[in-house]
């Protein structure tokens, strides 16, 4: 092979090499991106993002109204007392700092359920929009998790025993629908843990959930202003 032909061949290979290298780097960048989702997954994602954005828009509207009210009340601050009190009440209820009541569902569990299954159940309740949850009368807040072996589960030092109830405040229909759906947590537990019975019942009357006893203020952390 003559020298110029060799040079052409090497140039061609180097060119293809360069293209492949760029493709590879781009592929690495986009791994895990939305491009990877199927049409069905994208539809679910859109529904989730849509729901959340609606909630966020409502929150923005509330906050803007709050800000306007503060600015309108001027320097005295007296006009804000009612609004501040309402905000404080709502926030303490939401965070689990105060006892709360409202409609929802009762999940009755009997049998040697695993801690993972109970924590999955709590996650499904949150996904369905639960506003407050209690396990055997213990309010579930960040840090309060179910632990232990199936025969000896506990939460926040409270033994759960063989039979206990999970109470969740939220739309009873939405909560029951997500738990009882095909492939949902109830059917998964029925398949994976046949010795466990799990029944979801919408509450006839308002459920009352206690405040947490856990100190939710981080000890070693400082607010970043």
């Amino acid at each position, binding site marked *: 092979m003559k020298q110029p032909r060799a040079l052409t061949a090497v140039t061609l*290979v180097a060119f293809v090499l360069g293209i492949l290298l760029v493709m590879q780097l781009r592929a690495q960048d986009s791994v895990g991106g939305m491009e990877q989702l199927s049409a069905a997954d994208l539809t679910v994602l*859109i529904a989730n*993002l849509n729901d959340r954005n609606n909630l966020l828009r409502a929150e923005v509207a509330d906050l803007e109204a709050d800000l306007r009210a503060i600015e309108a009340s001027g320097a005295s601050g007296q006009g804000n*007392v009612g609004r501040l009190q309402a905000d404080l009440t709502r926030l303490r209820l939401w965070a689990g700092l105060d006892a709360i009541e409202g409609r929802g569902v009762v999940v009755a569990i009997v049998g040697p359920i695993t801690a993972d299954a109970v924590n999955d159940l709590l996650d499904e309740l949150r996904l369905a929009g639960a506003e407050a949850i209690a396990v055997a*009368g213990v309010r579930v807040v960040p840090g309060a998790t179910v632990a232990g072996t199936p025969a000896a589960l506990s939460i926040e030092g409270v033994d759960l025993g063989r039979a206990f109830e999970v109470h969740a405040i939220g739309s009873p229909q939405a909560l029951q629908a997500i738990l009882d759906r095909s492939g949902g947590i109830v059917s998964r537990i029925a398949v994976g843990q046949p010795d466990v019975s799990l029944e979801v019942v919408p509450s006839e009357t308002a*459920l009352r959930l206690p405040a947490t006893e856990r100190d939710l203020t*981080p000890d070693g952390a400082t607010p970043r202003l």
Partner: protein
Amino acid sequence: MGQPVVSAVTGRLRRVPGWQWTFAVALLALGFLIAVQLGAEGPRVRYSSSERPPLLETARELDAAQAALQERILSLRDQIAAAEVASAGNDQAVTDLNEGLAAARLAAGLVEIEGPGIVVRIDDSGLPVPPGEAAADYLVSASDLRDLVVELWQAGAEAMSVNGERVVETTALTDIGSSILVNSAYLQPPYDLSVIGPEGLYDRLTTSPGFIDLVRTRVQDYGLELGFLPSDAVVVPAFAGAVSLTQGRPEATPVPAASGAPAAPGQPAP
């Protein structure tokens, strides 16, 4: 006997022109890159259909809108907190309420905080998926993240976020295809859990049976990547979501909290 053969081969190799060596190396690199390119199609599958482009565009728009709304919420909360302090004046009742609100916001996770702790990173497996095995097993799932979050709480974590999403009372983790939603925010791997907690958090986490089981079944068996970075200044961002109640309200008569007593289900209100 072997000496003449070796000499013949060496002599022949010496006669190969330099450009042929260059060509051979380039072809080798080409083959390697083609193999890598094909391998990259492994766990995460690309989909193509005519209905996807508009869905993809909508999802991207909603995701961008969500980021903007979150930013607006955080900005408004900051403005409100500042305006409340400024408007309190000499009114003791207002001052007390403002102090109560500041404490409640901190406890509820609505304030960005900084403190000692660890950053835990978990990422999809880099291993090729063997034929016949489920590609999803080689990806981080919501269940993996949930297990890690639970183990971190049990090890004493005081505050936590996943890729910037604060874990609060209402936080749910759920799978969407090969990605995960946290607080309904769309997250992609790698997942960084920023955790603030007391000294010994790392030791308690890594010696817990649940965590050891997670490492054995997901990291060792499927090659998920797990790493830790201890730090004296871990930043956990504020929750940028809605703090709303539609069913919940203050109870009419206070109920005492459970205090180590045997399991007692919540009681129906009168």
